[in-house]
C-alpha cells in the first residue's frame, strides 16, 4: 500500500512541465468553478496554452489575451496570473469572481487592458498596479473593493479609461498625473469616497476612517 502510493507520487512525470504560462493559466482553471465548461479545452499536457480556447498568443507563443468576460466563472484570481509577462488584455468582467486582486498582477508588464468589472472582488486596489506602465484601460467598477484609490495609479501615463465606480472605496480622489482627465463618473457610487483631492489644502491621508 505504502509502496504503491509512493510509486504514484514519484512517477509524476515531468513530461508536461516547464510550460510556465500554461501552468499559470492552469492554476487559474483549478481555482475557478466553470459551470459552462468554457475552460474545457485548457489541457495542461499541451506544450503551450496557445491553442486553448479564449487564450490568444503572439508569434512567439506567449499569451497576449485572455478573454473570459461573461463566462459565469466563480472563484478567486490566482497570483500565478502575474507570470504572463506579455499579456495585453485580461478580460474577466461580468463573472462571479471573489477575493482580492492579487498583488502579483504587477508582473503583467505588457498589460493594456485590465477588465475585472462586475464581479464580487473585495480588498484594496493594489497600488502595485502602478507598475503596469502600458495600461490604457482599467475597469474595476461594480465590485466590492475597499480602501483608498492608490495615488500611485496617477503615474499610469497611458491610462485612457479608469472606472472604479460602484465599489466601496474611501478617501479622496487623486487628481494629479493622468487622473486629471477623469471625470467624477469614473468614481461615482463609492459612498465613502470624499471627492477630489484638494492639492495642498486637504491631506490625502485623512478621510478613510468610517467615523470621520
Amino acid at each position, binding site marked *: 500500500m*505504502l509502496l504503491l*502510493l509512493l510509486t504514484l507520487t*514519484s512517477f509524476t512525470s*515531468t513530461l508536461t512541465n*516547464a510550460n510556465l504560462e500554461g501552468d499559470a493559466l492552469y492554476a487559474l482553471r483549478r481555482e475557478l468553478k466553470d459551470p459552462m465548461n468554457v475552460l474545457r*479545452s485548457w489541457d495542461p499536457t499541451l506544450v503551450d496554452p496557445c491553442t486553448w480556447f479564449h487564450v490568444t498568443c503572439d508569434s512567439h507563443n506567449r499569451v497576449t489575451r485572455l478573454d473570459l468576460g461573461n463566462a459565469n466563472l466563480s472563484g478567486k484570481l490566482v497570483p500565478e496570473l502575474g507570470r504572463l509577462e506579455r499579456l495585453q*488584455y485580461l478580460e474577466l468582467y461580468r463573472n462571479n469572481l471573489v477575493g482580492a486582486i492579487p498583488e502579483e498582477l504587477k508582473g503583467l508588464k505588457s498589460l493594456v487592458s485590465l*477588465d475585472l468589472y462586475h464581479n464580487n472582488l473585495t480588498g484594496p486596489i493594489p497600488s502595485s498596479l502602478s507598475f503596469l506602465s502600458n495600461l490604457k484601460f482599467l475597469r474595476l467598477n461594480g465590485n466590492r473593493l475597499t480602501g483608498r484609490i492608490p495615488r500611485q495609479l496617477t503615474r499610469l501615463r497611458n491610462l485612457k*479609461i479608469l472606472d472604479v465606480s460602484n465599489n466601496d472605496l474611501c478617501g479622496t480622489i487623486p487628481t494629479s498625473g493622468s487622473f486629471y*482627465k477623469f471625470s467624477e463618473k469614473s468614481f461615482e457610487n463609492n459612498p465613502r469616497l470624499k471627492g477630489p483631492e484638494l492639492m495642498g489644502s486637504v491631506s490625502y491621508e485623512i478621510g478613510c476612517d468610517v467615523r470621520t
Partner: protein
Amino acid sequence: MLFPTLVLLLCFIFFPSSAYAIKSVRVIPDDQLLMEAKALLTWKASLQNYSATALHSWKLTSPTPSDYHNINTTTWASSSTTSCKWFGITCNKAGNTVVEISLPELELQGTLDNLSFSSFPNLLYLNLTSNGLTGSIPVHIGSLSKLTHLDLSNNYLSNVLPPLSNLTNLCILYLYTNELNGSIPSNMGDMENLIQLAVYQNKFSGPIPHSLVNLSKLEVVYLYDNQLSGLISPEIGHMKNLIDLDLCQNELSGPIPHSLVNLSKLELLNLFDNQLSGLIFPEIGHMENLFELYLHQNELSGQIPHSLVNLSKLEVLNLSMNQLSGPMPSEIGDIESLIILELLANKLSGQIPHSLVNLSKLEILFLSMNQLSGPVPSEIGYIKSLHKLGLSENKLSGPIPDSLVNLSKLEWLSMRTNQLSGPIPKDLGSQASIESFQLSNNLLSGSFPQKICQGSLQYLIAENNSFTGLIPDLRNCTSLLRVRLEGNLFVGNITESFGIHPHLYYIDISHNELYGELSPNWGECKNLSVLKIVGNHISGMIPPEFSQLIRLGRLDLSSNNLVGEIPKEFSRLSTLFNLNLSGNQISGHIPVEIGQLVNLESLDLSTNKLTGSIPPQLGQCSKLLLLNLGKNSFNGNIPSQIGDLLGLQEQLDLSHNSITGLIPPHLGNLKMLEILNLSHNMITGSIPLSLEGMVSLVSLDLSYNELEGVVPYNSVFKNASSPQAFRNNKGLCGELQGLSPCNQSSTSKGTKKNGHKVIITIIASLIGIVFLALAIIGIFFLLQKKTKNGNIEATGRNHGNIFSIWNFDGKIAYEDIIRATEDFDAKYCIGTGTFGSVYKAVLPTGHVVALKKFHPLEELAYTMTLTEKCDVYSFGIVTLETIMGKHPGELITYLTSQVGQNMLLRDVLDPCLTFPSDQKVAKEVVSVARIALACLRNHPQSRPTMQQVLKELLVLRPLILEHFYSITLGNLDDIEVE
C-alpha cells in the same frame, strides 16, 4: 511493565466477578476486559449509526436473571470470550485483555474523542486506517504506552498532532493522508524504537524535527506532500538504517546534506519539488544501493557529478527542472540498470553521449528543454527497450537518424523545436506502437511518411517545417486526437487525406498547398473543437454537415477559394466562439440565424462577396469582441442593434461595402470598442454626437463616405482619429485637424466681433502680395484641371497681367478687392479655414481670383508687432492650404520633426486633384511647395521675404517626373534666405 499483566491474571483467577461486582473491587482482571469492552461500546455508540454496522458483533450478552443471583466464573468467562471474539478485536492468550484493535476500511464515521485510550493499557496494535474519522487525535492516545503499531492513516483527522513521545515502544507510525497540521512534534525523537514513519499527505508545516536523526532504527521515512520547510538536517547521516527517504513535495530549502553519503543502505532518495539549492555532491556516487534517485523540481545548480555513473543499481534517475549546466556525463551508459532517465528543463549543453547505447533496459529518455547541440546519435536507435524519447527544445541539428526506425516499442517521440534538417527516415513512425509523433518547428523537408498511422496514432504534431509532397494519408486513422501540420508545403486533395475521425478534437492544416473540397465527412468528427484550414486552395462550398460539429469552438477557413453561401444550419453550432471565413468568395446573405450563435466572440467574414443587408440579429451575439464584415458588398443601413454588442472591443469593421443610411446613434454604447472602421461606404447624414460615448476608441475611420456636418470635438475623436479619418466625405467640418472649420455662422460671427476692419487695416499693406501669389497658385491648379478636362484655356497663361498688379499700389489693389467683394460680403465667401475666410472676387481686369482674409496670427498675438515675416508665414499657410485642398492643421507643427520631414509630398496634395501628369505642372507644384515650407519655418529670421518668394516663383528648377512621387517635405525645405 510485567506487573499489571500479572496482577490482571491473578485477579482473573482468584476474584471472578460480574458487572455488579466491579464497583466494589479495586483492580481485578475481569474488570479490565469489561472496562475495555465498555470503552469500545461507548465509542461504537458515538459513531454514526449507519457506519457502525460492521461492528454488529460488538455487544455484551445481557446477563440472565439467574446471573444476578448466581454469579460464577462460567458466566463471566462466556461474556469475556465474547468480547475477545468481537470483530476486529484480539485479546491476549489468556483472553483477559485486548491487545489488538484492527478495523481498517470499514467506513467508520465519527471522532476518536469518545474512545477512552486509557482503558486499554495492554494494547499493542491499533489500526483504524481508511475510515472516515474526523476531528483531532486525542492527547490521551499517549496513554497507550505499550503500543507498537499505530495506523490512523487515510482518514480525515485534523488539527495538530499531540505529543506521542510516551509511545516509546512504537515501531510503526502511519498517519499519512489526513489533514493534520501544525508542526511535527519536536520530541518525536524519543520514540526510539520507531522503524517506519509515514506522515505524508498532511498539512504539516515548520521544520523537520532535528531529533529525528536520533532514531537510529528508522528504515523508512515518508514525510512527502506536506508544507515542511527549513533545512534537511546535516546530521541525517546518523540514520544509518534508512532504506527509503522520501521528503518530496515540501518547501525544504538549503543544500542536499553531504552526510547522506553515510546512508549506505539507502535505496530510495526522493527530494523532488522542494527548493533545494547548491550542487549535487559528488560523493553521491558512493550510495551504491540507490535504486531510485529523484531530485527534480529544485534549484540545484552546477554540473551533474560524473560519479553518478557508479550507481550500478540505479533504475530511475530524475534531475529534471533544475539549473544544472555543463555536459551530460559521457559515461552515463555505465548505469546499465537505468530504466528511466529524465534530465529535462535544465541548462545542459554539449552533445548527447554515444554511451547511451549501453542502456539496454532504458524505457524512458527525456532530455527535452536543454541546450544540447550536435546530432541525434544514431545509437539511440539501438536502445530497443525505449518507449518514450523526448529531445524537444534543444539545439540539435542534422538529420533524424535512420536507426530510430528500429525502435519497435516506441510510443512517444518528441523532437519539437530543434534545428533538425533533411528528410525524415521513410518508415519512421510506422511502428504500430506509436501514439505521439512530434516534430514541429524544425527545418525538416522532403516527403512525410505516408504510413504514419498504424492504428495507435493520437498526436501528429509536425507544424512549421518544410515538408513537401503529399499530406500523409490519415483516412483510416480513427485513433487521432490532435493533428498539427500547418505551415508546411504539403500538397494534395484533402478529401483523399482525411476520413471520419471520431476522437479528433483539434486539427490545423493551415498554410499548405492543399486543394479539393470540404467533405461532408467532417461533420462526423463529432469531437472536433478546432478546425483550421487557413491559406490553402480549398474550393467548393461549406457543407451544411459542418453544423453537426456540436463541440466546435473555432472554425477558420479563411483565405481559400470557397464559394456558395454560409449554411444557415451553422446556427446550431452553439459552442462556436470564433468563426473566420474571410478571404474567400462566399456570396449570398448572412443568414439571420446567425443571431443564435450566442457564444460567438469573433466573427470575421471580411473580403468575400456577401450581399444584402447586415442582419440586425447580429445584435444578439452579445459576446462578440470582434466583428469584421469589411470588403464585401453589403448594402442597406447599419442596424442599430450593432450598438447592443456591448462587449465589442477589438474591432468593428464594416468598411469597403455599399452601406447607406445614417450612423446609428446607438453605436455610442460601444464603450469598450477600440477600432471602428466604417470607411468606403455611402453613409450619409452627420456623425451622431452619441459617438462621444465610445470612450475606448483608439482608431476611427469614417473616410470615403457621404457624411456632412460637424465632427464632434472631444477627446474621443481627438485621440482616435488621424487627419485621414474624415477625408473624402461630403462636407465634414470641425475643429479637428484635417477638417475645415464649420464656419459660416460661428466664424463670421467671430470676425464681426473682432471687427474685420482692424484685421484689414493690419494686413492692408501686404494684401496685394498675398492676393498675387494666390492668384498664381490658383492658376497653376486651374491649368492642371482644365488640361485634364481637355478645355485648353488662355487666361491662365496671361501671367503678365497678373504680375502687373505687383506694380500697382497696394492700396489700389485693396480698393479693387473691397469693391469686388462688396466689403467682404458673406455672399462672396466660398469657404472658411482656421486662419480666415476665402472670398471670390472678380477684378476690374476680368480676372476671377480667390482671396483669403486672415484672422490674427499667433506671432502677432504674442508680440503685437506686425512684421513682414509674419505676413510671409500667413502666405505659407495659404499656399499650403491651396495645394493640400484643406487647412494644413497640425501638419504645420510637425513639419520640422522627423515625421514631417519624411512625409511624401504626394501624400499631402489635394486628393481631389489628379497628380501632375506633365513635367511643367509638377515643377510648378514643387516650386510652390518649396516656397510654402520656407515661409512656414519656425524662426521668422529663417523665412524668406516676399521679394525672394517672387523670385523663387519665377525660377522653375529642373525636375524629373518620376522623382515627383518620392519627394519628401524634407527634400523641399531647401530655400536659403538671402
